[in-house]
Structure formats: structure tokens, C-alpha cells
């Protein structure tokens, strides 16, 4: 198999607050290959957005990357390269602008707030294109029209003159996707891109993202709290809880034989559209508070399979099968043996 284009290793992103430290991301590892969709699924506060913001260098004070590496395969910044990878956690100041937007770009959840209301679509699209591609305005406008056509907006040339308020939510999200892909990034990150949209519009945007991904063969990191969307989009899935990677495997393994108690219980508690259910099986308790969380498994208070070992330390992320990592002392599979911690790059 080819080398991954992005390797995130034991990433830790903390926020120091007056009340204590919030370990928003605490030991997260995953990797992204070309033409692959990584789905990150988790509930509010599980650290999924902070993970990808760390990858994009968008963590500001009081947040900081406290440990781990984010290795990105690129030709930029040759001085910082090691074996073809640049560690994004080591970048300072302006260095990140060579990567962000150009090689890694991000789409946010809310299409209402991620466009600037006082500038036209043209200005916002051209800004990105001209900055990264170093082309003149005329060429950039051609690129912009082409991109808007690609994302399925009718009359792209006229749309350029519109202000964001003149577009619907779905159209705005299309413009944002156009800005995201305009520089042909190796990795596109979509942070809950369809959460604010209606279901028929969501279906349109999901289809669009699948089409674009198969056209560009880029890596896509897709974040959502919606397991159904994950099932639809992802090749591999990382389940996050309390800032930690709980389980990481391909999408079929996660949905058909999840090993971590949290993944399994989460799948059992969602209502299904396609079948009649008599009862749901809710997970008792509340999601964890992240402030000054103890160094234990974050799912411990809600877990039905806790053991004595769980009360002593955080379980390591172990490989239980080829390409299947689980962070649990007592997972569902029987042939579990705690082998030494392995990385997630295969």
C-alpha cells in the first residue's frame, strides 16, 4: 500500500483555562491516504473539531498542541522535511499559509457564518485562488467560474456577483466547497458540512462531495455526529469520545462488528429509518465534562463492561486485528490480547 499523505500521531491539544486544563484532544492517531475518506464520528465535545483544527493550524490561545505529531507529505518547506514529511506541529507563523488552503483546506458546518456577508462571492473566491495560485485576476475569475460550475451552481458567472444573503443554505455550502477545492488540495476536511441543511439538500451535498472526491482523488476527512452519514460516506471510521480515539477500523467493521463498548452501544441507540423498532437501547449517563478529567477511560462512568483494570489507567490503543484499533481493556471480541501499542499507519 502507498504511503499515507497525512499521519497524525498521538496528537494532544489542550486548552488552559482559569479553572484548569481541558484536554480537548488527548492521544488521537489516524492517517489519510490518497483517494480515501476518513470519517470521524463522535458526540459534542468529543474533540473531533479540535482534532482537524489542529491539523489546519487553527488552534489559538488558550489552546495549544501539547504533544504528538502531524506529519504531512508535501514538497513545500523543504528545510523542515524529514523523509518527505513536514511536521505541521512545528510550523511557525506564516509557514502554515503555504499548507493551509493550498494543500489542506477545510469546510465548516455553518454556511451562514463561514462566508463574509459584506463581500461578494467573487471577492471571496478570488482571494483564495489568487493568494495560493499566484495568477492574475482575469485567470482567477475563470478558475472561479469553473469551480462554481463543478459544485453544481447554475449561472456561475452571475453568481459571482451575488452576496451571501442572496443564496440559500445549500447554495452557500456549495460556494464554500468551491472555495475549499479551488486550489486542488491533497486533503479536504469537511467539519459537519451538512448538519445545518435539510435532508434533501444534505443528500445533494453528499452526492456532490462523493463525485468531487472520485474526480480529484484527494483525501477527505469527514466529521459528523450522524452515524448514518458516516455509513454513507466513509471508507475508514474513527470513533472519538472524550478527546480520545476509541476505535478505528474500516466502515464495515465498525458497523458490523464493533469491539469497543461505546461504538457498539452508540450503534444500538440510534433510531432507524429502514426498519420498525420496538425500543431503543439508550446509553445511561451523560457525556463527560472535559475540565480536569481524570486520567482514565472517558467512557468508564457509562460503561457496562468495566473491569478493575479500567479503574487504574487509561487503556492503550491496541491493534486487535489487521487495521482495527481499539482502546479498551475489555472489548467485545474474544481473541483479544493486549499487544504493544501500534501506530495507525497501515
Amino acid at each position: 500500500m502507498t504511503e499515507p499523505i497525512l499521519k497524525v500521531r498521538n496528537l494532544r491539544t489542550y486548552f488552559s483555562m482559569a479553572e484548569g486544563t481541558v484536554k480537548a484532544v488527548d492521544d488521537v492517531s489516524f492517517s489519510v491516504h490518497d483517494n480515501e475518506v476518513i470519517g470521524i464520528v463522535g458526540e459534542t465535545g468529543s474533540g473531533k473539531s479540535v482534532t482537524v483544527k489542529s491539523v489546519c493550524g487553527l488552534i489559538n490561545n488558550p489552546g495549544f498542541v501539547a504533544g504528538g505529531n502531524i506529519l504531512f507529505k508535501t514538497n513545500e518547506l523543504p528545510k523542515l522535511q524529514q523523509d518527505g514529511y513536514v511536521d505541521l506541529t512545528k510550523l511557525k507563523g506564516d509557514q502554515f499559509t503555504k499548507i493551509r488552503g493550498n494543500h489542506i483546506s477545510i469546510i465548516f458546518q455553518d454556511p451562514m457564518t463561514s462566508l463574509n456577508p459584506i463581500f461578494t462571492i467573487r471577492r471571496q473566491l478570488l482571494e483564495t485562488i489568487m493568494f495560493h495560485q499566484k495568477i492574475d485576476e482575469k485567470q482567477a475569475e475563470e478558475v472561479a467560474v469553473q469551480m462554481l460550475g463543478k459544485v453544481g451552481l447554475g449561472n456561475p458567472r452571475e453568481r459571482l456577483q451575488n452576496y451571501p444573503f442572496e443564496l440559500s443554505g445549500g447554495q452557500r455550502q456549495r460556494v464554500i466547497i468551491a472555495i475549499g477545492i479551488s486550489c486542488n488540495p491533497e486533503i479536504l476536511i469537511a467539519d459537519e458540512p451538512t448538519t445545518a441543511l435539510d435532508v434533501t439538500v444534505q443528500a445533494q451535498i453528499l452526492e456532490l462531495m462523493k463525485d468531487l472526491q472520485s474526480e480529484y482523488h484527494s483525501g477527505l476527512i469527514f466529521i459528523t455526529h450522524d452515524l448514518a452519514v458516516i455509513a454513507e460516506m466513509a471508507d475508514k471510521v474513527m470513533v472519538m469520545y472524550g478527546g480520545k480515539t476509541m476505535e478505528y477500523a474500516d466502515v464495515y467493521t465498525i458497523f458490523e462488528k464493533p469491539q469497543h463498548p461505546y461504538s457498539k452501544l452508540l450503534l444500538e441507540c440510534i433510531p432507524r429509518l429502514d426498519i420498525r423498532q420496538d425500543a431503543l437501547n439508550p446509553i445511561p449517563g451523560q457525556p463527560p465534562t472535559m475540565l480536569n478529567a481524570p486520567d482514565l477511560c472517558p467512557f468508564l462512568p457509562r460503561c457496562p463492561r468495566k473491569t478493575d483494570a479500567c479503574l487504574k489507567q487509561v487503556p492503550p490503543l491496541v491493534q486487535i486485528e489487521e487495521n482495527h484499533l481499539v482502546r479498551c481493556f475489555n472489548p467485545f471480541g474474544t481473541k483479544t490480547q493486549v499487544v504493544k501499542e501500534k501506530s495507525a499507519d497501515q
Partner: protein
Amino acid sequence: MVEHKLLEVKDLKKSFPIKAGFLFRHTVATVKAVDGISFSINKNKTFGLVGESGCGKSTAGRSIIKLLEPTGGQVLVNGEDIVPKKDRRLIKYRREMQIVFQDPTSSLNPRMTVGQALSEPLLFHNMVKNTKEAREVLGELLLSVGMKPYHLDRYPHQFSGGQRQRIAIARAITVDPSLIILDEPTSALDVSVQAQIITLLKKIQERLNAGYLFISHDLSVVRFISDEVGIMYLGKFVETGDTDSIFDNPLHPYAKALLEAAPVPDPRVRRDRKHLISGQVPSPINRPSGCFFRTRCPYAMDICAKEYPELVEMEPNHFVSCHLYKK
């Protein structure tokens, strides 16, 4: 004696005027947010109202309990029309009907403790004599929604979103209502908490024997909780009837598209969407002539531009409003 239905909504209408002008305000157009919907709810049953944003489902819910004044139609509660009733004569019905909103953070007053917020309805309806008596009742009540009696002295910000929604539900059931309007009660919650709240709602329904009007855009949740559903598009029902019948065999092109558009949590059912509809919902100020869905409908015919199709019963308790279906 005739057995009345708990709630019967007949041809409910609610329109909002759009005004223009500075000195001489005049109405330039009306938005028909709810345009003649009819359905009924029995005791211990749930009617699910689904549709995309702007289809009028929340306006319908609010008009039914008269938070908004309906423009037309009847709302019969135990056989009595409450639309013409005003102020004091409504109080009796207010006690029968309660509502739970989507966002518990904004529907609870941040400056009132849980105890204060929950004792208001009890005191207002003279169900208890004083605050002390209210506290005794409320302690029990909080236990029944999975909270603790000592939570009465806390403020809403001290709780998580799921707990706040439990408090909002507790407030709705303080007065033992027979009808509860649930306006997207789980949309702001996480998946694992959503399941808790849905299960709680089912438990409460059994205990109170109450009828629910469940308003949601989430089709999976509606399928789980509802006995009957109505799918709304621009203020009208396109399809209504028995839940399983509609979800297993949707007839209206919009219902088909809506159900097909929703992703399913199973990677082996990746959808090949045949009925994917393009575009978005037209503006409710300027609805298309004839059938409102015809501008996005793959099967639109000449007649669709001329007249709005009537609701016809295609299967027992399964109505559809589309020119493709004729009795």
C-alpha cells in the same frame, strides 16, 4: 354518548401578512405557512409532523395550542373548538395542552431555579396551595424524568443539554396534560442522549395516557415514535396516514425523495439515489400554481400546473395528494 377524539384538527390555516410602507403600513402579500391541514390524535397515540425547514410544521404546532392565533379552521379538544375561545376561557385548555421546545437552553429562564420554573404552572392552575407543597410534588416529578429532587435549587446553566431537556419535559408534565406538543425535542441533543429522551417520552406517554404531536425533521426519530405521520410541504400535507405504511411504501414523489435522501446507518445500504430531487423548496410567499411540488417533481404533468391535487386514500389510512394517484 359520542366518544370524542382527544384532538381533532380540521382544515387548520395560519397565514402571516407581509407589510410594507412606512407611514401607511399595508399588506403586500401573505405567507400561507399552514394551509388547510387536518388530522386527529387519540389518547396514548403519537402523530408525527415531518417536513423540511419552512414547511410550516412548527407554525402548525403553535397554532394548535393557540400560541399563534389560527387564521382559519377548527381545533377540537375533546370535541370542543378552541379557536374562537379567548383569554380566560382558554385557561382550562391550556392545562390540557403543553409544549416542549427544541432548544432547552433558551426555553428555560436562566434566572429561575428549576424549582421556581416548575412550580409556576402548578401555582397558576391552583393545583397546589403554596411553594412548599409544590416542592413536594416536584421532587417526585423530577425523579420520574430521571433527575434528583435536590436539582430543584439549581439553575439551568448547571445542567447539560440532555438534563435541561428533561427539565423542560418535567415542566410540561407538571399539570398532567392530555396533549403534549413536542417541537423538535431531540434535535439539539447528542445521539446517545437523544435515545434517552425518546425512551423517557415513551415512558411518560404510557403513564399519562397522553397524546403527542411530535414535530421533527428527523425521519428516523419520527418513524420510531409515531403511530401516524403527516408529511408537509409548503403548508399542506402531501401524504399522511399510518407510519409503517408510509415509510415502507411512500407514494408521493416528495415523500419518496425525502425518504431516499435520508442516509441509513448501514454501509451496505449505500444509496443509489434514483429519486434525488434538485433545487430547494420554493418561497412560501410565491408558491407555484397547482401542485406546489411540481417545480421539483420528476413526474410533473400538465394538470399539475393547473390544480392542486386532493388527498385520496390509496390504502386503508394512507392518504396521498398527487395527480399520479386517482381513485
